[in-house]
């Protein structure tokens, strides 16, 4: 049944249906209502989750690590500075291969302090070893929370998964969402069998031991294997989701009117919605334009992205965060995707939407218009910045 709800509520509903054993969470704008809704479910007896109201996000992720090592199904949610505080432990969660699923309500990192959306928090955690998925709408945030749970717990993957949803734009705005029936969602997610649960006292195990130079390298390489298992699992779980629910998510990204496109945008998150409006309008005017919207950001699907954009002449890569002293992180990935290919579009890097700055259809139309005349390798371009 279609319902009207915020992105917060959509994510909290997915969490209620997953009903993890433990949720350890600390409130932070624009994530707080996810925690509030979940606390409501716990205290009204709608879920049997142990809710741990910790004193910081560092503790939230630490409690998640402990609970997941104990053998529980564990979830959390955060944003911005909260994620920054979690990152130290997030590296440990991924190295211990703990399938913790986390909603990240994307918000700009300080400073200056700001509470609105950009992707600097997600980029901060980019190398932490967690799988990262970006979503365009509250509906996608809901669906991918369920998909993420199954992906995280997949044997061979066994990694934390971050589901990104743009702060305020998705978390606070009210949208039409169609949640699954509880039994359908629960059947899809299934039950979880941990690898070496600490609470299994008949089979004791040591977690998080010290590793010297003779083993650290091998342990990190073994962690890479988890990431390597993601792409195949991602597609399989999308297919299983379609079979169980009739909802079709196919591929690591959504290609939007890319067939025969000569110019294209690559974006992540809610701005894809704005871009679709622009693409439709320009297509109506006979212009060959398209869009590639990322879902799976880590691991990055280099070959698939390069193939999808192989015939495009110009591509503008939109990064919603800076990587000071370098191109945007998404642009760098796109460039790497094409570096050994004969057929490659001209790439240009735009920085947009920092600290919640709106990106309008007019601005994206202008990007399409000027794309052909912008020379590649001219550094960063900025959308909607006062010069």
């Amino acid at each position, binding site marked *: 049944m279609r319902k009207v709800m915020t992105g917060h509520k959509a994510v909290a509903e997915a969490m209620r249906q997953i009903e993890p054993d433990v949720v350890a969470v600390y409130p932070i704008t624009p994530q707080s209502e996810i925690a509030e809704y979940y606390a409501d479910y716990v205290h009204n007896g709608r879920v049997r989750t142990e809710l741990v109201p910790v004193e910081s996000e560092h503790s939230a992720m630490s409690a998640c690590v402990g609970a997941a090592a104990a053998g529980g199904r564990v979830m959390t949610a955060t944003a911005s500075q909260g994620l920054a505080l979690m990152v130290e432990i997030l590296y440990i969660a991924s190295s211990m291969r703990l399938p913790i699923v986390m909603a990240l309500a994307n918000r700009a990192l300080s400073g200056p302090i700001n509470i609105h959306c950009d992707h600097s928090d997600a980029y901060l955690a980019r190398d932490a070893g967690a799988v990262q998925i970006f979503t365009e709408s509250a509906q996608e945030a809901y669906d991918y929370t369920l998909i993420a749970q199954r992906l995280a717990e997949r044997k061979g993957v066994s990694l934390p998964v971050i589901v990104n949803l743009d702060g305020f734009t998705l978390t606070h705005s009210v949208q039409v969402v169609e949640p699954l029936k509880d039994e359908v969602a629960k059947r899809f997610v299934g039950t979880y069998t941990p690898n070496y649960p600490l609470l299994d006292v008949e089979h004791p*195990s040591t977690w998080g031991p010290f590793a010297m130079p003779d083993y650290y390298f091998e342990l990190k*390489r073994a962690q890479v294997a988890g990431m390597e298992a993601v792409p195949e699992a991602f597609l399989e779980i999308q297919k299983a989701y379609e079979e169980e629910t009739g909802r079709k998510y196919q591929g690591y990204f959504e290609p939007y009117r890319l067939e025969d496109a000569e110019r294209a945008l690559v974006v992540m998150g809610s701005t894809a919605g704005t871009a679709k409006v622009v693409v439709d309008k320009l297509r109506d005017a006979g212009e060959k334009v398209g869009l590639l919207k990322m879902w799976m950001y880590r691991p990055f699907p280099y070959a698939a992205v390069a193939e999808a954009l192989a015939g495009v002449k110009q591509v503008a890569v939109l990064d919603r965060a800076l990587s000071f002293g370098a191109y945007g992180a998404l642009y760098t990935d796109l460039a790497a995707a094409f570096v050994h290919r004969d057929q490659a579009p001209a790439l240009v890097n735009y920085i947009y939407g920092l600290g919640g700055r709106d990106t309008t259809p007019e601005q994206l139309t202008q990007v399409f218009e000027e794309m052909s005349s912008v020379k590649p390798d001219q550094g960063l371009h900025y959308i909607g910045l006062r010069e």
Partner: protein
Amino acid sequence: MAAKLKSWRELPIGGVVPGGATPELNKTGSWRSQRPVWDEEKCIQCLQCWMHCPDDSIGIKDQKMTGMDFDHCKGCGVCAGICPVDAIEMVPEGGAECAK
């Protein structure tokens, strides 16, 4: 100690050590620079040292303290600090006699 080092493919997921027997296998007492010396005459068997030892290195039998496990004691001195009757003294490693 010349065990063959394993390839990354042979390692349990997450670097877990199944069996959990690492303290028994790894004798870490050689890290010690200070050694606790226990005076059994002064000891009142309050077991404060046993409760506070962070490395489970106080031996106990029939609810009585029996001495230190020097294969694992790292010489932190918590036992000497907590002892209410000064029955444990920290002395430089190498210059002391083992109490038991």
